[in-house]
């Protein structure tokens, strides 16, 4: 899953390898989406293998820092997934998180980060299929945007 990017002398013009697959970091909540991903695996449903998972206790645990840090550290996209509203193991964790994500998403767009770089979704433990479909969709969105250049930290 190496990222092959050919850069011409003109920095503006960047050719991306056709086989390039975006590297995506997924924050999955322990009780729903993580189990959902597990179910997708057990059911042998195919979904992009370039997704790496971080398990968090609840989407309410996710600090905007997690998402921004992932981008500055070079991930091409971020996925956040948790229980459907009302199904939270901690009753209201995902509802509080939803407000936070709504603002973060709008702010990122306001700052000019391409919409689609950071994706939010709900997937329950029984929705292996849905999880796979949504991850596929998120990967497609990020792939269209190309490698993460804007927020990448230049060392």
């Amino acid at each position, binding site marked *: 899953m190496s990222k092959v990017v050919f850069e011409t002398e003109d920095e503006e013009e960047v050719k991306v390898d056709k086989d390039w697959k975006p590297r995506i970091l997924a924050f999955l909540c322990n009780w729903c989406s993580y189990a959902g991903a597990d179910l997708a695996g057990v059911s042998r449903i195919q979904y992009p293998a370039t997704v790496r998972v971080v398990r968090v206790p609840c989407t309410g645990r996710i600090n*905007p*820092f997690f998402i*921004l*840090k992932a981008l*500055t550290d070079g991930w091409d996209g971020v996925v956040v997934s948790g229980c459907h*509203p*009302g199904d939270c193991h901690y009753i*209201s964790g995902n*509802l*509080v998180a*939803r*407000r*936070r*994500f*709504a*603002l*973060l*998403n*709008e*702010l*990122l*767009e*306001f*700052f*000019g*980060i*391409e*919409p689609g770089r950071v*994706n*939010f*979704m*709900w997937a329950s433990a029984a929705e292996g299929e*849905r999880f796979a*479909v*949504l991850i596929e*969709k*998120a990967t497609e969105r990020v792939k269209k945007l190309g490698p993460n250049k*804007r*927020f*990448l*930290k*230049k060392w």
Partner: protein
Amino acid sequence: MGIEEENQKIEKSIRDIARDLLKNKEVDVIIGYTEGTVPLSTSPIIIRDEKDVDKLVWNNFCYINLAKYLAPRMPQLVDPEKGELKVGIVTKGCVGRALIQLAIEKQINLDNVKIIGIPCNGIVNRRRIEKEIGEKEILEVSVSEDNIIVKGKNFEESFPFSEYINELCKQCKIKSPPKVDSCVGECGEYESVFDEFNDVKEFESKTPDEKWEYINDLLSTCTRCYACREACPMCYCNLCFVDQNKPIWFGKTTDQTEILMFHLIRAMHMAGRCVACGACSSVCPVGIDLNLITRKLEQMVKERYNFTSGIDIDKFPPMMDFEMEDEQEFMLEED
């Protein structure tokens, strides 16, 4: 009545009220504004004695948000024996909002605070004027009629007042504090505030590339001195996220991504709490105008959660609250 006359009238009333409050022992100290050491500015002052009330001033350069001195309380405002002193505070609209928002967040007790409300007619955008004057030294500034007159050695320039006030003041709907103990002039009551946010919408109609370019340009000069944080009445955390070093979420350099990260997270933390006083932009040593971001924050919480910060003391802060029916149009869904 010109702006100048109006201000002088307000100034006189502030002094009278302050004198009465101190004389009747209703308050122990008064926090207000006094002449600044340089033109285009004023300094905060703490007055303990009736004799000193004539030091209080009111003009269009009072950009400091005085609520900053109450959360956390300055040591000068706490008596070792009596505990918290009773404070009278000269309050324009945004200071009043900050006081209420701080009370909502349980940072101050409004019983110990006497609010001397004044209707504000806008604060001069000092950074913009300084930028336009350039390297020449400004020696004297005054507001007369509808012009700001800037004088210096061998030059005199005038700027239209309505154009050269802070961007936030142009949009301001809450000119006098929502809650007052004694009021100079007319103080209104605010239940809900209507705003169209045309300026934000105009910016948002741009493409991501244009927005990125603009924001990068705007923030590129940031030296991360954190003056914006120090001036902000709502920034009272014991340990700010930029000083936190376990874990280090982002570095301390002026690398472009780190500047952006700082401003993004700062904005996240201010959402639903920012009282739109514009102090952050006024104190910025490199003249970054953060007002666009501030307006965006206001717009987001207003349109999504119908909340305007610092109006209603009984309302729960929106970012600590939730509703089952909150909008979730940004969520990814199956086709």
